[in-house]
């Protein structure tokens, strides 16, 4: 998928802001800098434990701005609605968007609605775009990642992925796992206020922290070492992963941030994360071992070391 995107879109639209393939583009405009991002939401089912497509559409775009170190200001939204879509469900989705935007301190300032004939869309699709001012506090790009820097995650991984799987009725058992879907700009502002040691952040959505860490290793040519035993995973998420053969590091999150932090500041950032409602289970999960090798290694629970790969293809359950 990534190579397809690079070949089709990045090569054809090529420009400096796009080519970095970051979560948001950074634009310079008469001496001021803006962060700009867009995302479309097609989640199935539309409503799931811990959220719905509307909440997701606000969180996803707010988070893409926040992890760049920007302050999210305003969102646009576009709805593509299948004819005959349940009005009550639509109201729940819109109310969730309004509530989430309020909680995140952003406004939804412009929008568009299209209705297509039955069968031409699957219920509802939502696009949101967002702009923010950059930087919120300091320019992350001016802080080079070096060997020894710590890797932090703001809480348990894989909750969203398993919650969606459960809500789809794909599991033959019930779980109480809820999506972690949440706007991260508050938590991120807290850590940036308390520490000037944050160097890089991403929200590990599709592809999980495996995708984010492999991208990080690729972008800066880093050798990263992650300790599996330090990775926060809920017991019930871990249990589902055991049963179905998933790696929690491959599962999607919608309310977590992965950060690279200067080693001397790591404990302080960890403490700040843990003091925030959304970061209670934050952990230091590894470090930058070396520069120049472009590799993510995992020290497994039992002490062996292996490579962590970007997840490829659909996640499929094991059959025996």
């Amino acid at each position, binding site marked *: 998928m990534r190579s397809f995107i690079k070949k089709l879109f990045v090569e054809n639209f090529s420009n400096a802001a796009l080519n970095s393939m970051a979560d948001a583009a950074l634009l310079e405009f008469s001496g001021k800098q803006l962060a700009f991002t867009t995302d479309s939401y097609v989640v199935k089912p539309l409503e799931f434990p811990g959220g719905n497509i509307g909440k997701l559409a606000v969180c996803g775009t707010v988070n893409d701005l926040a992890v760049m170190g920007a302050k999210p200001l305003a969102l646009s939204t576009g709805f593509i609605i299948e004819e005959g879509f349940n009005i009550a469900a639509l109201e729940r989705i819109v109310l969730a968007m309004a509530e989430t935007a309020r909680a995140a301190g952003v406004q939804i300032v412009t929008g568009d609605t299209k209705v297509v004939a039955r069968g031409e869309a699957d219920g509802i699709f939502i696009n949101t775009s967002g702009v923010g001012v950059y930087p919120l506090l300091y320019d992350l790009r001016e802080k080079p990642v070096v060997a020894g820097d710590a890797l932090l995650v703001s809480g348990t991984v894989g909750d969203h992925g398993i919650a969606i799987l459960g809500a789809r009725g794909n599991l033959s058992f019930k779980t109480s796992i809820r999506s972690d879907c949440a706007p991260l700009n508050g938590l991120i502002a807290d850590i940036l206020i308390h520490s000037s040691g944050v160097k890089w952040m991403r929200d590990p959505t599709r592809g999980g922290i495996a995708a984010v860490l492999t991208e990080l290793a690729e972008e800066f040519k880093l050798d990263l070492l992650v300790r599996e035993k330090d990775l926060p995973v809920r017991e019930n998420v*871990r249990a589902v992963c055991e049963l179905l053969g998933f790696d929690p590091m491959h599962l999607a999150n919608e309310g977590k941030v992965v950060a690279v932090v200067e080693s001397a500041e790591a404990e302080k950032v960890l403490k700040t994360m843990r003091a925030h409602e959304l970061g209670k289970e934050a952990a230091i999960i590894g470090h930058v071992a070396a520069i120049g090798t472009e590799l993510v*290694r995992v020290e*497994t629970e*039992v002490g062996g*070391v292996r490579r962590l790969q970007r997840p490829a293809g659909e996640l499929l359950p094991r*059959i025996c």
Partner: protein
Amino acid sequence: MKVFDDFRSADVVKRVAEKIARLDLKQPVRLMEVCGGHTAAIYRFALPDLLPANVKLLSGPGCPVCVTANDFVDRAIALSEISGITIATFGDLIRVPGSTRSLADARAQGGDIRVFYSSADALDWARQNSERIVVFLGIGFETTACTVAATLAEAVRTNVRNFRVLSSLKTMPEALRALLGAPGVQVDGLILPGHVCAVTGSNEFDFIPREFHIPCAVSGFEPSDLMESILILCRQIKDGEAKVENQYRRVVHWEGNARAKAVMAEMFEPADMLWRGFGRIPQSGLAIRTQFSDWNAANISVDVEPMREYPGCRCGDVLRGILHPTECPLFGKACSPENPRGACMVSTEGACAAVYHFSPVQRER
């Protein structure tokens, strides 16, 4: 899950690793496992990294998807093109390449192909959709075969007439006999599949030390289980012994699960079976008994395209332990989990996919 924690203790694993190292075997030791669950666990926990350099772990024909021959996928695709037929399959099989297409391709072209987690779920779906003929694709070894047998027995008992099974179910003992007798195969010890043995009993494998003088350990699936099994095999090798030792005593009994064996014997009979990489192995498959032929999808007449392999694909050599996945010229280039050419790259239990996802690396010293 907390129940696993004791079996994943880094201290226990380290102690066993030290015992293996202290045996100080001088010769190269090639240990083969024949279970996809073992393949996945070995690479996921990076166990090769904890072993002496001369102790090598090989993956044999233990991943059900990997040993499924192209002609089975081709037949399933051909069936999916008959109007009124729904193909019910385990998820792993969806992306396995057939001779020219996969089930995923057939689904994109309009075939009604649905993923189920168990044969029982597929039977339930058939009950609720009586206007469709539901063909369940039965792949797997004894572990899965007994569950398919139970579902089939239930379909017969409750007279669900729109449910069929296309069987490519396989049995492990005859396959191991064929493997160990094949030219070029070098195995110094076998890690026997714990869950297959739970069904068959460990005594089904007694012929291996007797006929081939190869040490065997029935193994569980946790890191400490596998390390202990490796220790058992290394000890036998050191002492010049060859016998079946049962490391997985908490699950496996020497005579197996009588109920599971009974339902398999009731519904299936041994038959010759085509294996990817091995060709036809006599009496290594399970065919549906003739009195249940109304439920046998093999009886649906359909034109199947002539079988062919992807040029250069060496899954067969990988499955025999002759070739390490990274030695295949297609590995990571023409063949990757995103675009698999051979079955070993599809399932998370396939040797190539396991090595691709979890490839061992030099640890930090």
